[in-house]
């Protein structure tokens, strides 16, 4: 008997079966207290707020809402730890604590990735391959600075600032915690960290890690809560430094609040990044870069390449390829290892995206959205591309913070630069061309803190990240990231 060749129709599209990561890897407690002075407070002592899985709307755990009095306790614990322990701990010893933390993050990486995906809605592929490894790398990198601050270029004996109040967003919860804590601790500061209200869980696992690392009590305190908690931290007179990552609107308010005080401030705010495509760009990699630029993390990225500026001569070609690629994106269960685009982080954010997309349609832009099926429960938005967009449209000016790309065209490098700079933001831009001299010419004229050439959304602890203009000031990463926590 002859065996038969397999007909293509029997396989059809290589539709991957679900390959979900196990949610049981996340060993979550039903409720959490605050992490103050090295220990968790009794959850019952605080107002408890649920944190939900945005992919299912199920409650994952409840966390404490830190009131002003709790923030005060945390700041005092940080001050005490600074005065009695951390400021007299040598750089070499601080380094070893940070190395321990980096190693513990690596050891618990899989658990952390699952927690991050459950709480945030991001695809497990991203939390596993980007967020968690980068968080560990950040601790590793700044650990190496703690014992060599005198070589960092800020003088022979740079001093820390004291107590740092750090407020982080929900889009990269653990990574943003690492970006804040690692340089602060390396430089010799103590910290009060306020995670985002919708994504507190990975920071609370991090608190357990700090305990396992035997970091002295009070060196890092973690207070969960909402904007009121953050405001209490900003207003606390015992805080020497405020580091905030979040919206430009809140950044403005914080800068106004600390104005006239001796409080140091760094702000990492919104953006409306331009991805500039020239006609000699490497086309397949460029399409991938546009996709990564806007659909990475559901577009919940302050440096997202949310405006595509494409040279007119290749616009049709680029859009056709882009559309084909958008159709291929797998949207759905964030825990599935094959998911490309996960859930929108919250109902409020979904509403904001929907409002801006509706505005785009009203203003006359042409909308294309992926025909992918969306799950019934949870918060979802199909990957979307707007063409026929003009500079004046809201979708070309306002940060959508979602999987929505606005496409504009240009004819010359000057015009590309002018359009890219025609924004109040200045966080990041991309340039796609095989001509190095033009890429550098453009890069020197873009008003942005980070410029990627033939790539997008790359992060590394050694590379400074941050914005100009209304995207904020101060840098995270590299030597400038250290300067943000030194009295220099």
């Amino acid at each position, binding site marked *: 008997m002859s065996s038969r060749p397999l007909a293509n129709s029997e396989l059809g599209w290589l539709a991957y079966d679900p390959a979900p990561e196990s949610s049981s890897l996340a060993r979550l407690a039903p409720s959490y207290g605050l992490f103050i002075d090295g220990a968790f407070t009794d959850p019952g002592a605080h107002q408890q707020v649920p944190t939900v899985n945005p992919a299912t709307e199920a409650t994952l755990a409840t966390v404490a809402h830190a009131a002003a009095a709790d923030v005060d306790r945390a700041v005092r614990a940080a001050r005490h730890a600074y005065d009695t322990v951390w400021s007299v701990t040598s750089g070499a010893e601080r380094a*070893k604590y940070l190395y321990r933390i980096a190693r513990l993050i690596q050891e618990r990486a899989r658990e952390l990735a699952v927690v991050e995906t459950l709480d945030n809605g991001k695809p497990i592929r991203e939390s596993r391959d980007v967020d968690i490894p980068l968080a560990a790398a950040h601790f590793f990198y700044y650990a*190496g600075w703690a*014992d060599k601050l005198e070589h960092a270029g800020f003088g022979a004996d740079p001093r820390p600032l004291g107590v740092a109040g750090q407020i982080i967003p929900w889009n990269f919860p653990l990574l943003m915690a690492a970006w804040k804590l690692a340089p602060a601790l390396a430089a010799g500061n103590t910290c009060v960290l306020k995670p985002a209200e919708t994504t507190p869980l990975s920071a609370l696992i991090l608190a357990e890690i700090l305990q396992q690392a035997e970091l002295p009590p009070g060196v890092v305190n973690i207070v969960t809560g909402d904007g009121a908690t953050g405001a209490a931290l900003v207003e606390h007179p015992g805080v020497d430094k405020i580091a905030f990552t979040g919206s430009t609107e809140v950044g403005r308010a914080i800068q106004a609040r600390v104005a006239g005080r001796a409080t140091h401030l760094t702000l990492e705010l919104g953006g409306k990044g331009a991805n500039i495509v020239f006609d000699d760009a490497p086309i397949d990699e460029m399409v991938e870069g546009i996709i990564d630029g806007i659909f990475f993390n559901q577009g919940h990225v302050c440096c997202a390449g949310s405006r595509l500026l494409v040279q007119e001569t290749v616009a049709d070609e680029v859009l056709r390829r882009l559309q084909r690629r958008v159709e291929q994106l797998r949207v759905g269960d964030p825990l599935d290892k094959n998911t490309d685009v996960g859930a929108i982080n919250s109902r409020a954010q979904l509403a904001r995206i929907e409002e801006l997309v509706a505005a785009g349609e009203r203003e006359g832009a042409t909308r294309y959205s992926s025909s992918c099926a969306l799950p019934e429960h949870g918060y979802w938005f199909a990957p979307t591309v707007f063409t026929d967009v003009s500079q004046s449209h809201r979708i070309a000016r306002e940060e959508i913070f979602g999987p929505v790309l606005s496409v504009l065209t240009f004819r010359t490098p000057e015009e590309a630069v002018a359009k890219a700079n025609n924004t109040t933001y200045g966080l990041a831009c991309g340039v796609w061309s095989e001509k*190095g*001299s*033009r890429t*550098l010419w453009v890069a020197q004229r873009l008003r942005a803190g980070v410029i990627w050439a033939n790539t997008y959304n790359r992060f590394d602890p*050694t590379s400074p990240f941050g914005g100009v203009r209304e995207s904020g000031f101060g840098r995270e990463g*590299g030597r400038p990231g250290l300067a943000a926590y030194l009295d220099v």
Partner: protein
Amino acid sequence: MSERLDVRKTYKLLIDGAFPRSESGRTYEVLDARGAFVANVARASRKDVRDAVRAARAAQPRWWSASAYNRGQVLYRWAEMAESRAGELAAQVAAAEGLDATDARASVGRAVDRLVWYAGWTDKVTQVLGGANPVAGPFFNFSLPVPSGVVAVLAPRDSSLEGFVDAVAAPLCVGNAVVALASETRPLPAVLLGEMSATADLPGGVVNVLTGSLDELAPVLASHEDVDGLDLEGAPDAAGELAALAAATITRVLFPRTGGDASLRRLRAFVETTTVWHTVGQ
């Protein structure tokens, strides 16, 4: 009370990730600080030097092409391994240097911290030693430190572990491969640390540790044409002669010097600077 007879260890060379005896079959006696016999140690030959340099040359490009982050992780892992076997190291340091147990353990602690310090340098030397240069004209110009290549280290004679760490980890962390000749009279802490490198994910050939006669092997290393850098710390008396041998192929030489920050000096000793000019225009 019957005492258990201990199983003694054979101390061998480290070449290309393997632990051979000297190809010559020779050994020599190592004595402790009080003159008592400790072990017969491999006495490396010219050919062992040749093999070690060849292994280092082959391994260096891969070591350098690994990310700086990765090299840092590997050196840190080496420190972890050293810490976990600190007792063993301390016993050998005590014997070699005549220290009491407390001082020996402290020395091991400093050596491990030093290794951690170097681990942190791998992804920072570029930022400290390199940079962009504001040249006049439409150019983007930047300079990067790159490793010299294969560095021969004559390890310090007295500081059997701390000195060895400084001499070896510095060139390593900037991307060089190393052939180290351990202190002739106090080689065992270095041999142990070499063994630990093999369990620290350090690729074979990146670190090679030889034991033997300084007088015999130092000229071979110094005159070896495929050696790019030479650290003369362990041969202060013959430094001039050895440096003259090295001059034949313009080998970079680090002379013994007292005072100053020796380790930062070592960090810079075996790096070259590569500068890139790139046009800027529409």
